[in-house]
Each structure stands twice: as structure tokens, then as C-alpha cells.
């Protein structure tokens, strides 16, 4: 199995605060990897480093053998990283299907002029875009909501739409920031099934941040635990969750 993500010694400081300190992670192709840790540990900041929202002070990010450390978010996405956000960031005034179509932006092309004149090539490609977007929505069982405004969706559905939109960019690596936050147990269970399903169907490599221990232990093969910006433990899910230090730092006060 090839290595998908190989990030080494990532660090970043905000003012005096070292939010992420010497973070290293290696994810193999097709793996489902969990990133856990108490509030403020630096998990989202790791995502922001991997996706180019912040540039690391130190460290390297290698994706599929290519060094992408200094790429901006747009090119990080183009080279194969897609993400969801902890605080949902949908295109609230666009319909559900248009949100997915924005995700498909770099997958289908026609010229600006064709778009303004609505030429036959525009019609043909738009039809393909529409079909692909509906296919993706049906993976998430959301096709009935296609024409609803994104902001009118229930919370759980909004989280799923963010995943669908990220998947639309055809990533090699999918980063999910607390995908089950705010979901009820039923929704969480359904989400776990969906994540397992897209992993199998698309052979997706996934890194997810999660607070829900049941979700983490249920689907992640490997875990890394962060605490105050530093790595506390890493390895197989069972052994990490059994690690006394981890229990003390994180699970103890949960």
C-alpha cells in the first residue's frame, strides 16, 4: 500500500501560543485515520495547515509523493485534499445541488463565453454536471433535497452536504472536522455507515477529527491524540484508547 499523506514536524505559532508543535502523521492509501484530543488541542489547526489556510512555520507536507507544503488552499484542493468545516460553511443562498455543483467546478469545463451564450457545449456539460451532482447526492440519500436552499436544511443534513461537496472535488484525501457534531445518535449511526460506504465505494483515504468516542472506535483503524498542540500518542485505535496517558488527558475528563 502506498503512502497517501506524509506530514512531518509541522509547527505553527499564533503570537506566543504554539498551537501545533512538531506534528507528524503518516496515512496509507485507503486508511481511515482519526485525530482526537481535548478542546483547543490544535486539531482544527492541523487541518488548516494541511489545507493551506495557514502556512506551517516548520515542517513538510507530502501528498501522494508530491511536496505540497507551500501551496495555497486552492491548489491544495486541486492536488487532492478536500475538507469539511467544524463550523459549517455551506453556500447558504445556493440550493443543495448547486452547492455540490460548486464542488464539481474543476471536474467539468466549458468556456466563459459558452456559459454566457448557453451554447450546445454548455448544455451538454451542464447536463453531465447535473447528473454527477445528483449521483453524489443520492450516495448521501439527499436527492430529495436537491432544490432546497442549503441554509434551510436540518443541521445533520448540512453536515452531510458538506461531505458531498468535498467529495465532488474528487479528492485523494478527505478531511472531516467533527462530522457528527450536533447530530443525534440515529444521525450519527447513519453518518458512520455513509463514511464507511464512501470509503469502500471510492477507495477514499479519510482523516477525521471527532469527539464522539463511539464513532472513533467504531470506524477508525488508527488514531493520533493531540494535547496542547503536541502529539500524546499514535497507533492502532485499541492500543491508543487503552493508553493510560490518553485516558488521563482526554477520556478522563470527557
Amino acid at each position, binding site marked *: 500500500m502506498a503512502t497517501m499523506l506524509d506530514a512531518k514536524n509541522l509547527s505553527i505559532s499564533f503570537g506566543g501560543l504554539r498551537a501545533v508543535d512538531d506534528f507528524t502523521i503518516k496515512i496509507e492509501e485507503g486508511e481511515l485515520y482519526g485525530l482526537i484530543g481535548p478542546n483547543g488541542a490544535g486539531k482544527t489547526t492541523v487541518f488548516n495547515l494541511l489545507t493551506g*489556510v495557514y502556512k506551517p512555520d516548520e515542517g513538510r507536507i507530502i501528498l501522494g509523493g508530491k511536496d505540497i507544503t507551500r501551496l495555497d488552499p486552492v491548489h491544495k484542493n486541486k492536488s487532492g485534499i478536500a475538507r469539511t468545516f467544524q463550523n459549517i460553511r455551506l453556500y447558504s443562498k445556493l440550493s443543495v445541488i448547486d452547492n455540490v455543483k460548486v464542488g464539481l467546478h474543476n471536474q467539468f469545463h466549458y468556456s466563459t463565453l459558452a456559459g454566457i451564450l448557453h451554447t450546445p457545449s454548455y448544455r451538454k456539460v451542464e447536463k453531465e454536471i447535473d447528473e454527477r451532482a445528483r449521483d453524489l447526492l443520492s450516495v448521501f440519500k439527499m436527492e430529495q433535497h436537491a432544490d432546497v436552499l442549503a441554509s434551510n436544511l436540518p443541521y445533520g443534513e448540512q453536515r452531510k452536504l458538506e461531505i458531498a461537496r468535498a467529495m465532488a472535488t474528487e479528492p485523494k484525501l478527505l478531511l472531516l472536522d467533527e462530522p457528527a457534531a450536533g447530530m443525534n445518535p440515529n444521525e450519527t449511526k447513519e453518518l458512520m455507515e455513509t463514511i464507511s460506504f464512501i470509503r469502500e465505494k471510492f477507495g477514499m483515504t479519510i482523516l477525521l477529527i471527532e469527539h464522539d468516542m463511539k464513532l472513533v472506535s467504531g470506524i477508525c483503524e488508527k488514531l493520533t491524540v493531540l494535547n496542547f498542540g503536541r502529539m500524546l500518542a499514535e497507533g492502532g485505535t485499541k492500543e491508543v484508547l487503552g493508553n493510560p496517558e490518553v485516558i488521563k488527558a482526554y477520556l478522563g475528563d470527557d
Partner: protein
Amino acid sequence: MTMKKIQDKYITYGMVVIAYVLCEILMRTGIMSSHIKGLLVPMCYYAIVAVGLNLCVGILGELSLGHAGFMCVGAYTSALFSFAMEDVIPTVPRFIMALIIGVAFSTLFGFLIGIPVLRLKGDYLAIVTLAFGEIIKNIFNAVYLGIDDAGLHISLKDMSSMGMDPSGKILINGAQGITGTPSDANFTIAAFLLLASLFVVQNLINSRDGRAIMAIRDNRIAAESNGINITKYKMFAFTISAAIAGTAGVLFSHNISTLTATSQYFGYNASILILVYVVLGGIGNIRGSVIAAVILYLLPELLRGLSDYRMLIYSIVLIVMMLFNWAPKAREFREKHFAFLNKRKEAR
């Protein structure tokens, strides 16, 4: 694109065509007074510039207070061409070329001003566009341009410092502007250009580029994470928006015989007037901009007879329109009973 969106687009075109045909009938049958006849072209160019500004404010989500400036660029550059070529080129090709020139220059100005301005956000962007609009207007107010056998002469001081031969032709006479521009525009051309602007903006909204622009408006960070080039699409939308304002400017200057860069037409108060059309028509609602521009432009003119009550009625209409467009209850009511007036939900 769903059926609803397609229908929605044609309703807007239909509305303009019907209004055009009605006005033509009233004109041909002699029912329409010459006063109202004179309002038809301005009504169209205000609708056009409102559509252009709505692309910037409602679709791109950036508040510009400089669109009268882009209108000014389109007006001056095209009028200059028409005036200089009045005896050289026949009317029809001359107007087409003037239109191309006016649009080209306003596009260029939109692009150049967009580079610094689009780095700013919100209020800062609004203030700086306002400043650029004023600068454009003031430059056109100060410029003297003439042509003689030796070529073009330009000055920002006064006429004599141009050093022009007395036999030459004065093109721009400072604050007195361009005198004797050919009035090549008419209601048919104006209605056609309104349709063309609507065509460009509405088709753009329903395209890949339009979705990218609205995605940036709704959430810049998410759009970046979806691989959308923010700068490119912001520049693109802003430039097209300026080009449409320039189109309105071409109509403006070819509908009058003396073009001056007065603040009434090209200053920040004009920009704000256009913004009023956009806001009251509904931000992001292209058809609403046309309706609001037409009503709010015609109303004060039609009420001239009622001099004392004119501003009173005008302000009541403003308030009613605002409620109709923005109050939640009114929105519900409208969605139920005036489905044909509904803007695309997605564009809201």
C-alpha cells in the same frame, strides 16, 4: 439547470418586451406625451446600470459606490468617438463602434480599479470605489482635448494651454464637456441593450462561473477549499459589472447633445441612486432591479404636476417597495400570490 430557472429567465425578457411593445404602441398612436417619450431611454439605461450593479452587489456580494464612474467612462469615451467621427462614418456603424469603444474602456477601467479595490472588504471597498468614481468624474471635468492638423492636444489646465491651432476642433471643453454629440440612441436600441445586459447577467448566473461567483459571496473560505480561484472570479464579476455600467453610459451620452460630467449624473449621489434601485428591487434579484429602476425613475418625473406632494408620494413608494421586498410576511405573501414576481431563490 432546472425548468424553473429557465422559465424565470424568460419571464424577465417577456416583461421587457411587453413593456417595450406597449410603449411603442402608445408612441405611434400619439397617446404618449413628448415629456414621457423623453424618459424612455433614461429609464432603460438606469435599468441597465442597476442590473450591472446588482451583479456586483447581489451576485458577487461586494458593495460598490462607484458605478456612476464606470457609466461616465462609457459615456465620455463613446461620445468622444461619435463626436470626432460625426462627419466621417455613417450613423449605424458609428454607433456600433462607439458602443464597442465605450464598453471596452469601462471594462478596462473596471479591471484596473478592480485590482486594488477587490483586495478590500465591505465598507472599505465601498468607500474606495466611491473615491474612484469621484476621481473619474473630476478628471473628465478637468480635461481639455482638441484636434487639429498637427494631431491631438490635451491639457488639464485650460483651453489655451492645449496649444491648438484655432482652425482645429475642440473635442472636450473642460467642465463644459462635449457639445454637439450626435444623438444616435433611441428607445429601440435602449430596450435591446437592456435585453442584452439581462441576457449576459442571467445566463452568467446559471453557469459554472456564476456558481463560483456566488460561492465566493456566500463563503470565501469554503470556495477556496473547493478549488475556486477567488481573485479571478471577483475580478471577472466586477469587470463585467463595470462593462454593463459602461453600456448604460453609452446610451446616456448618445441620448443628449451636450455631455458634461456633472455630479447629478456621474457623482456619488448617482451611484447611490442606482444602489437604491438595486436594494429596493431586491439584492441579487435581477428582475427586481429592472422593475425598481423603472418605477423609481419614472415616478418622480410623472409626479411633476403634483409638485407639493411629489416627494411625499415618492417616499411612500420607497417604503412600500422596501416592505414588499424585504419584510418576511410580505415575502411569504408574495411567494404565494405573486409567484411570477419571485426571484430565483438561489440568488437571494
